[in-house]
């Protein structure tokens, strides 16, 4: 990657404590495939950031590094004040409770109801029944699914399934919500409904990082954009569009 492609960056002020910090991060898979090259990113708490780029640009690797599903081959990744490279395996669960994540394919448990899908995330982390009874209805209320709590995923629309996934991602009050192509399986109207929900969650103080191919949404939102190409961060711009405008 040439310097011409990598520049210019538009500096984003780091006045607020970064919830994500990547310093000279590189990632090369054992098969030799280079996924990320010298990525430097700092995302302050409360930010709303789009991660864009063509397929194979390194977006998924970027996300996998943040949730410590993989470790970088070079550089440092710091999330919520914790250096993931030096983090012990036993500390990973507590990190993941600080990060909510949703995917394009929702990843709901088909045999569990909406309520049970959300409750499951609390149950498997040792929450009490009282905590579950208190938190789950509140979250279903937030995502607008309180009247569908007894429905199975198959009985819901795509948008409702994604809202269920968002409710599940928020059960531990995470500092950050990562959404990996959350509108990929949704129609435009439903996609906008979902974006409204993400904006609402962001307004409540949760940092949102959304990987997307949806140009319309990115262009309309005018938020910070991180653009990856061939593993290199080619743009880090606030108030930006999906594609370079200069």
């Amino acid at each position, binding site marked *: 990657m040439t310097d011409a492609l990598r520049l210019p960056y538009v500096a984003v002020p780091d006045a607020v404590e970064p919830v994500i910090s990547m310093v000279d991060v590189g990632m090369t898979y054992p098969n030799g495939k280079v996924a990320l090259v010298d990525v430097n990113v700092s995302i302050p708490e409360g930010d709303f950031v789009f991660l864009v780029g063509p397929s194979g640009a390194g977006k998924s690797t970027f996300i996998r590094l943040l*949730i*410590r*599903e*993989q470790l970088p081959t070079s550089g440092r990744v710091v999330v919520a004040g914790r250096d993931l490279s030096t983090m012990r*395996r*036993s500390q*990973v*669960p*507590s*990190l*993941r*409770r600080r990060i909510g*994540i949703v995917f394009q394919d929702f*990843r709901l*448990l088909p045999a569990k109801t909406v309520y049970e899908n959300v409750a*499951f*995330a609390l*149950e*498997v*982390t*040792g929450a*009490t029944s009282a905590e579950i009874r208190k938190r789950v209805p509140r979250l279903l209320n937030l995502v607008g699914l309180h009247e569908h709590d007894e429905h199975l995923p198959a009985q819901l629309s795509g948008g409702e399934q994604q809202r269920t996934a968002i409710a*599940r*991602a928020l*059960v*531990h009050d995470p500092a950050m919500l990562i959404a990996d192509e959350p509108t990929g399986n949704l129609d435009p109207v439903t996609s906008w409904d979902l974006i409204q929900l993400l904006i609402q969650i962001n307004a409540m103080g949760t940092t949102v990082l959304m990987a997307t191919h949806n140009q319309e949404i990115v262009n309309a939102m005018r938020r910070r954009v991180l653009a990856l190409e061939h593993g290199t961060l080619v743009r880090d711009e606030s108030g930006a569009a999906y594609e370079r405008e200069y």
Partner: protein
Amino acid sequence: MRLLRFIAFSVVRAWQGFWRNAMMSLAATSTVVLMLVLLSGLLIVLAGLDSGLHYIESKVGVTARLRDNLPQDQLDTLLADIRVLPGVKKADYIPPEEALNRLKQFYREQGQTLDLGGAPISLYASIEILLTDPTFADSVQTALGERPEVERITTRQVDYQKLLSIIGYVRTVGIIALGLVGLTVLFMIVNMIRIAVYSRSGEIEIMRLVGASDSFIRWPFILEGILCGVIGAVVTIILVAVAWEPIKPIMVRVFQMPTAVSTEFLAVLSAVILGVGLGVGALGSWISVRANLSSAA
């Protein structure tokens, strides 16, 4: 409280998991039962043989049949000489009348009557020598062979050696058979858990993403294997308990030792069955969980 919630969660999930793949679970449990039934059979037979061995050890080591009408002073001298021989624990004079009584008693225990058609029965007088260790049988036999008062010497050394070799053979064959069945059981449980892990890979992935600790992810699978072993053990204990009454007389008849089939033995056997079932279940699931769940962070 958190620990209790964890235990409750793991047990419930293990129970659900066991029945979710019911066919595989029941197949694995059946092999556990097969192995434990084999183990029980082997232990019962070995206990009978061991008991027989102890019986022989505790009974007469060497019997010296005496010449007829041996004067009392010669008998006393002989007894005194025998009692000072190395390896002799006890030497008792058995007069012909007592030998006859014993013979009648033996027949009675077998449910028969000693009947020689009214002919008088006369048995030899003898000295029964109890040894501190059956290995002294040869030296005692040699010493007695030089005494004119002794007409014939019999020893159960041959029986003892024969029984020892039978026990060794049974133990070896039994251990090999158990080892093979044990490996099959392990293989079944490892596979059962592997299938369970794959069938619940979606759940496991979600658990990891929402921050479930390794214990919450792994222990339900380990408990599922333990459950398989424990259910297999309970079924085996029930089978052994049901078969116990029919087995008892067979044991007495074959081994002639009622002590081999005591209720205490049944209790110990049940504890061993439960322990082995639990251990095999835990080992199999632990191996499988290590192999199938360790790679992911």
